């Protein structure tokens, strides 16, 4: 998992402990769900950058 606190420090965002927690804790929560989803994505899967809600089901 990402060390968000280290990233925040490196980006100059680290204030007091409470401010740091306010930035990093939600990211840790999101990442716990998000990171496993990124495993085993097929290489041909395109991003939805031109987003089309009507794209047909596979």
């Amino acid at each position, binding site marked *: 998992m990402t060390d968000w606190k280290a990233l925040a420090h490196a980006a100059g*965002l680290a204030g007091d402990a409470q401010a740091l927690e306010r930035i990093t804790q*939600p990211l840790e929560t999101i990442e716990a769900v*998000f990171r496993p*989803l990124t495993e085993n994505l097929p290489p041909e*899967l395109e*991003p*939805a950058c031109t987003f089309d*809600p009507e794209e*047909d*089901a596979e």
Partner: protein
Amino acid sequence: MTILEAGRSLRAGSATAVELSTAALARIERLDPSLRAFITLTADRALADARRTDAELAAGLDRGPLQGIPVAVKDLFAIAGVPNTAGSLVYRDRVAAGDCAVVERLVEAGAVMLGTLNMHELAYGITSANPHFGAVRNPWDPDRSPGGSSGGSGAAVAAGLVFAAMGSDTGGSIRIPASFCGTVGLKPTYGRVSRYGVLPLAHTLDHMGPLARTVRDAAVVLNAIAGFDARDPASSRRPAEDFIPAEGCGIRGLRIGLAESFFFERIEAGVESAVRGAMARAEALGARLLPVRVPDPAAINAVGQIILLSEAAAVLEPYRQRRELFGEDVLALLDQGSLVPATDYIQAQRIRRSMQRSFAKAWSEVDCLITPATAITAPRIGQATVTIGGSEEPVRPAATRMSRPFNVLGLPALSIPCGLDSSGLPIGLQIAGPPFEEARLLRVGAALEDSGIGLSAVSGQLSATPEQGDC
């Protein structure tokens, strides 16, 4: 009085547009100092619009059911010559040079524009406790949040200040205030309503739609604003249609999906009871309730949060170093977004495409889904956490987790009131469906509303706070 009823009064000569607008302005003058629903009131323009409407109707020029109806838009929507602040200091000196596409279409339909509505700062949050323009208050209980980010829109409609209001919805920002304020709120399919001229929060998640008192009133507004606009690169070329449900419309034989996992977990008991009661009513009306499996909404929400954090941080990056411009909560979200790597954003968009395909399979089994619109009813202003079933969680995810998946998937979703909880606060249910099937969702909503699901039977309770008036 509904939009359709007011329209009939205008055409029958029993009311004039000037009378409707004058009543609305008087009500705003009386109630808005405490509600704080408006940021900019355009009273002179409204009365001029109303006088023109009366002259047009007298001359036989009928623009349709919105003609002469007082409306307002969230302060994210550009109205020519009017401040367009997005409830922020970032845009405090911005005055719109022209109308956004939605306002253009509302004006073309003859709506009377009363001004711009307060909101969560930059549309980036769900409380509408705006640090710069004041906290919007919920008409049902002034100590409660109206939800957000379109909190002024929800409060203005619920308090009878306007017949309908425009909101934007990036993770639930139309449906959450609709749920908390006891109004109808519709997030159309991505691409159905032009975003042109509306200040963005997250380009691939932002949707524009109406809040109104009834399902048919929301459909009247959608009729006016839907359709292709070449100025919005995401605008769909699919033709608009008549979205207004017929009187006595039925739902016999309709397949309503019941996604038990996730959508009926960790919700307040009163919310579950009311939503299940509405589903039983749908079944009594002839619909079939069918269990359905959908891709994990918690995973869809995580993907949506990565996309939102990244896109919003990009939009507001030119301002982020001027930290004094932002409220504490918005600044924290922008800082979070600045840390998300580009690879995660791209992965989120790839997973989004995969989830979109997987979710589409559900539409071969059911015609729509019914879920709670929010897991909770309106929290108190300033309340940070809620406790559901003995488990405490922050208010923000508790408010957004039912609605956000449909932003990620771009699917239409309608919130309608379905009762009150034990504290007398409105409860919302959500009807979601396949892309561009707004008419189907509105038909389901209207059938439930016609059957007595909603707040019509208890709307008199609003008299304890701002009573329902002529507008």
